[in-house]
């Protein structure tokens, strides 16, 4: 077990190094305008002097080694165009708490809504009754899932913002003091999550319902409710646990689109802003942070699975190939 965890963490570190290097090398291919605040007005000699000062004229591998050295000392560099000369670490530190708050609230909301919806949809598969309430959840859930998955989120967020703010009689943009303006971004951010949890929970539960142990439990006379609660749900939830850490981390860095749409001062909106301003150092750091969060989320998910699911063993199976 310990060996597995150590191996997994080392693999993640290697992946992180590769990702950071690739992003670094790719962003270095950008035009040098992205490193200057007022490029057009600068003299060629000043530009050259500044490039030397920033170390951008050196060979790429030396630059990369210097960059890793700075990263280890916790120095993320300074912004070039977005807010000139301010350290990127400070900028992110100011934005991150907002994103974390939004991410956690919408994460909790999507689980609170998605899991019961998935449960209810799976339950309606087992019931023979065609009662309205039973069928309603199945129909509603199916339509909801198809809609959220098929229609690009970039489109329905616009409509939620417009008609939602009209219905709530509030501003279309976020303002920190007014709690009503929190509602729409949170709802927008959690819609995808609700559909995700409902869809997968339903699918895993329907899979589990066809297993032999469910038939056995039924034959023994366990009530339908108890089968659902303590047999099916528990087993169906295990594969979903793997994705929870990743989902938490992702919602924490914020939905890029929603934050930008509502002008929420978070990290997602920041990424869009710095792309529009073509601020190379900041794009580089933010892209790295987002990619690393993917790696860390997957690592945590795997580790959690290993701890929770007793069926996962670390003895290497001999392949039949």
């Amino acid at each position, binding site marked *: 077990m310990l060996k597995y965890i150590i191996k997994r963490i080392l*693999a993640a570190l290697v*992946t992180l190094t*590769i*990702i950071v290097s690739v*992003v670094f090398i*790719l*962003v270095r*291919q*950008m035009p040098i305008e992205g490193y200057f605040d007022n490029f057009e007005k600068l003299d060629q000699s000043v530009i050259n002097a500044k490039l030397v000062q920033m170390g951008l004229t050196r060979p790429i591998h030396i630059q990369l080694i210097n960059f890793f050295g700075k990263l280890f000392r916790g120095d993320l560099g300074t912004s070039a165009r977005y807010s000139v000369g301010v350290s990127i670490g400070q900028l992110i530190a100011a934005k991150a708490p907002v994103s974390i708050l939004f991410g956690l609230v919408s994460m909790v909301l999507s689980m609170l809504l998605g899991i019961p919806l998935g449960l209810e949809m799976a339950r309606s598969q087992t019931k023979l009754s065609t009662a309205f309430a039973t069928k309603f959840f199945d129909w509603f859930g199916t339509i909801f899932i*198809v*809609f959220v*998955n*098929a*229609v*690009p*989120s*970039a*489109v329905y967020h*616009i*409509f939620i913002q*417009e008609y939602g703010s*009209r219905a709530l009689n509030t501003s279309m943009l976020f303002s920190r003091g007014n709690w009503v303006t929190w509602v729409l971004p949170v709802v927008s951010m959690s819609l995808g999550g609700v559909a995700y949890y409902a869809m997968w929970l339903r699918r895993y539960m329907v899979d589990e319902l066809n297993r032999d142990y469910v038939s056995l439990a039924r034959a023994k006379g366990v009530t339908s409710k108890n089968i659902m609660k303590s047999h099916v749900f528990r087993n169906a939830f295990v594969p979903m646990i793997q994705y929870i850490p990743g989902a938490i981390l*992702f919602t924490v860095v914020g939905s*890029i*689109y929603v934050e*930008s749409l509502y002008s929420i001062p978070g990290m997602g909106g920041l*990424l*869009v802003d710095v*792309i*529009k301003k073509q601020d190379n150092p900041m*794009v580089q750091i933010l*892209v790295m942070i*987002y*990619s690393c*969060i*993917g*790696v860390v989320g*997957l690592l945590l998910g795997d580790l959690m699975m290993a701890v929770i699911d007793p069926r996962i063993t670390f003895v290497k199976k001999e*392949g*039949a*190939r």
Partner: protein
Amino acid sequence: MKVKPSRLRDNISRPLEMSIQAEIDNIDSKLFRESAFNEDEAERIGYSNYSYWRSTFRAFSRKKIPVALLFVLVILLVFTFIQPFLPGQYAATKINNHPITGLQLSNVKPMLTTVKAAAPSGTVLSVTRSKNVPEGWLAVSNIIGSVPRRTAFTVTEYLDDWVRIEYGGAVGYVINDFSTKLKLADDPSAVPYEATSNFNVNFFIEPMDFTNNGIELFVKASDASVADDGASCVLNSQTNLYLIPSDSPFLFGTNNIGQDLWALVWSGTRTSLFIGFMVAVIEAVIGMIIGMLWGYVRRLDRILTEIYNVLDNIPTTIVLILIAYILKPGIGTLIFAMSLTSWVGMARFIRNQIIIIRDRDYNLASRCLGTSLPRQILRNLLPYLVSVIMLQMALAIPGAIGSEVFITYIGLGLPVSVPSLGNLINAGRKLLSTSQSYQLVFPTVVLSIVTISCYMIGNAFADAADPKNHR
């Protein structure tokens, strides 16, 4: 024929045996004929006439909604391609101007016809000459002059929503409503008296407005007889007056720079579908090739697994943003950025399936019987893979369209000169609460039809293509 005597001949089996024997004896022996022993026949292997594609098709056609959506999608697809060749279409990027004013026909509301009004036979209209008016059309109006603002004119007749006036020797009719705000006498029908307005007011030949808010309308030259001086014409018959010198309406209206939204929407759908299809095809092809290699070639397994671990960890949105940021914006860039990592999931799935199926008993049996490798892949492996390949391809299209909208929003999408659904939605986004909301609604509706159809057809086909669901 005789029933073999049972070893456990007891009181129960005995009568049963007897009755069966009686039944057999009753059978007409002419119905049967004995056949000689044939070694080849004994070795023959039976097969079912199960056809994979026929069963898949049957399973799919049983589902009503996806079939209907497939129908809609095919019609839509065909239409997007034939639309530019239909008669009376505007070029998507053409900026339409009014021939007389020279201004862009911006934010024109959706319309079904370009006819503004009909004028009776014998109506006299003044002709505005301009070289911008196309051949066969006349720019006309029935305005004969205008009174400058705050200038007195004489009202000679009061007709409620029109008044007849005399000004500078000319006689004409002026509209009397909020648009002219005439300052008439306390008793407006006690003519004649002097009146003024705070606006410039046009006066017309008759109490009829044959203009578009004071701007010239158009008639076909064949419907009117032009006077010798070319400054006026008389209509030969009951004639339609057109907003623009064309029979083709702006079905979806125009955008803020006077481009035909109908043409833009279809051109944009073509672009977006092209991006979607290309991404789906590239994903499928690369995914299949890498997946097959990964599954079959043992030496590649380790390295490909490591590559997979790295690529799968990076969020696709971030790859998309990074590539679009670095490269020049364009269709090629978007396709490249979207398909750069998307094949990874497909490759892994195919690899897993191949490893599982290669050593299944039926494939082993098939190999022992000497099935060639291409036939093994085609007949034994592919049916298991088709469902997921189709599903992934069907989902790639809505995914690519959605990514395109997103990447356009953050300013890294296609240039404005290339119409796409992303560009149109992004331009229409700010107009949702205005009276021009149709500029968002039309692209959104088309986009939703495409994406929802693709998604549902993909899912239904994946179900149908799974051999487990063939009954």
